[in-house]
């Protein structure tokens, strides 16, 4: 306790989200002193996400969370809906897999629970405290400056979220451009539990997820989502900030349009808005990952841009990166070595884990997606709905003529050179994902 009174501890973790909590609890479990600093009035109070946490990675941090944590619903169905102007095509995968499932949660409840658990295991939590800057001595991070005082530590872990002003302060982060983030807006809408179960074809505490392509996000790198909670649904969308800027679009107006779509509006009809929220999603991918460690410092979670947007993964990468940073801190504390070289074991461990392997696999995704978003997020989505419209319409026109017309239009509307470019882009992407 002496050390705390002297404003010096072993590890300071900045940010009480999934990355910060996972890191802090890993360090506390090894018997070390760790202070977790959270700027909100409780963990989760500044956090927003779509809706689901994943069971397997969460169990790595909190093995009994399924029995103890405030979870909403067990996701049993994942729906992929391509929205047209007034039509839609939906593919749905349903499987009640208790081992590798995900759960919808409310961050204000779930993150708070995680923080409480961490506290029980010895993490000291300082809430309502904003770290304004890092203290640097001899090119080494040695502590943090809050609004009130200076705290010193052997290691500082930055888990301060997508905006990480601290990573920026120490020059670990390149400038973030609008194309590197998506702006997400979300509404949590109250609906009776029974109504949710009826409308979404669910039993008891089963839940489902909608991924929504096209619609108001047509032609842009953007995605809508809908998650079912116990007695509410979370509906929202995330769109590349560059697209919003280029097209002068207000994010909440896009969400209004999404909610009015004939395939969506019946699902949320007569619901009462509980809360509106907004947050940025780091979407820069592998190429925009900052320097992850230096003397006395490591970066985890959203602050490190660890999001796999193609698979809607973020909280799991945050938890695992936090855990690996925590393990590195424990090794460093045992050796009393907080040098750049020692803490580089953290990015090395990340490289060996699925976290960096996955992000590397998709390293070209965002480039290709930005180059070809007109086609992949626009034209082809339209054609899917067009095909099913043609296939299901009964209008006494001979089928062969309809098929030929569809193929003719498919090529004519998107000229052959563009189709060729799309094919090359898709091939390059698949090659980089599957081969190298």
């Amino acid at each position, binding site marked *: 306790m002496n050390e705390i009174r002297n404003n010096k501890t072993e590890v300071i973790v900045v940010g009480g989200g999934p990355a910060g909590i996972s890191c802090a609890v890993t360090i506390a479990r090894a018997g070390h002193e760790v202070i977790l600093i959270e*700027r*909100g*009035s409780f963990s*989760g*109070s*500044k*956090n*927003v*996400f779509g809706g689901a946490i994943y069971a397997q990675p969460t169990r790595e941090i909190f093995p009994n969370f399924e029995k103890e944590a405030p979870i909403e619903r067990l996701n049993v169905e994942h729906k992929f809906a391509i929205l047209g102007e007034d039509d839609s095509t939906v593919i749905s995968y349903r499987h009640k897999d208790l081992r590798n499932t995900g759960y919808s949660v*409310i*961050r*204000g409840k779930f993150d708070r629970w995680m923080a409480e658990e961490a506290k029980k295991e010895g993490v000291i939590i300082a*809430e*309502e*405290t*904003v770290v*304004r800057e890092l203290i640097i001595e001899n090119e080494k991070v040695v502590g943090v400056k*809050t*609004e009130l005082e200076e705290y010193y530590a052997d290691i500082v872990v930055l888990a301060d979220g*997508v*905006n990480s*002003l601290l990573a920026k302060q120490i020059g670990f982060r390149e400038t*973030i*451009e*609008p194309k*590197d*983030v998506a*702006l997400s*807006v*979300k*509404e*949590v809408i109250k609906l009776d539990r029974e109504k949710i179960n009826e409308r979404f074809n669910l039993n008891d505490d089963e839940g489902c997820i909608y991924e929504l392509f096209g619609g108001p996000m047509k032609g842009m790198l953007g995605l809508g989502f809908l998650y079912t909670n116990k007695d*509410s649904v*979370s509906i929202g969308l995330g769109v590349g*900030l560059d697209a*919003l*800027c280029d097209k*002068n*679009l*207000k*994010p*909440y107006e896009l969400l*209004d349009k999404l909610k009015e779509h004939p395939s969506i509006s019946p699902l949320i009809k007569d619901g009462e*808005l*509980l*809360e*509106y*929220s*907004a*947050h*940025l999603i780091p979407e820069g991918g592998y190429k925009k990952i900052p320097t992850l460690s230096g003397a006395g410092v490591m970066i985890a979670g959203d602050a490190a841009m660890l999001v796999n947007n193609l698979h809607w993964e973020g909280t799991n990468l945050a938890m695992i990166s936090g855990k690996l940073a925590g393990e590195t801190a424990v090794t460093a504390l045992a050796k009393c070595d907080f040098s750049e070289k020692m803490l580089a074991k953290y990015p090395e461990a990340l490289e060996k884990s699925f976290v960096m392997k996955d992000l590397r696999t998709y390293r070209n995704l965002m480039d290709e997606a930005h180059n070809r978003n007109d086609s992949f997020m626009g034209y082809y989505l339209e054609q899917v709905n067009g095909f099913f419209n043609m296939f299901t319409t009964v209008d006494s026109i001979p089928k062969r003529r309809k098929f030929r017309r569809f193929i003719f239009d498919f090529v004519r509307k998107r000229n052959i050179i563009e189709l060729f470019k799309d094919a090359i882009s898709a091939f390059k992407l698949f090659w980089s994902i599957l081969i190298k």
Partner: protein
Amino acid sequence: MTLDDKLFTVKYKPDSESHLKPDFEKCKTCTSKICTVICPAKVYEWEENEQKLTVNFENCLECGACRIACEKNCIDWEYPHGNKGVTFRNG
């Protein structure tokens, strides 16, 4: 439902001073004024008569989009003081 109705559902504890400090002189020369468009809480409004940007920082959802989108790169963007600003109960 208007944006104001939506914002009415959000719990805030307003700070005493703005944590968002645009360089108002640079705002005058900004052509896009993109912050007035993309901000999910309509924090920024351009007053044509006064040639001034108003900052309704009390509505800020602390997302950080304005900081990145600002073409003049002129918004000094900080977090509000501890225990101030937005509290999401259902994030």
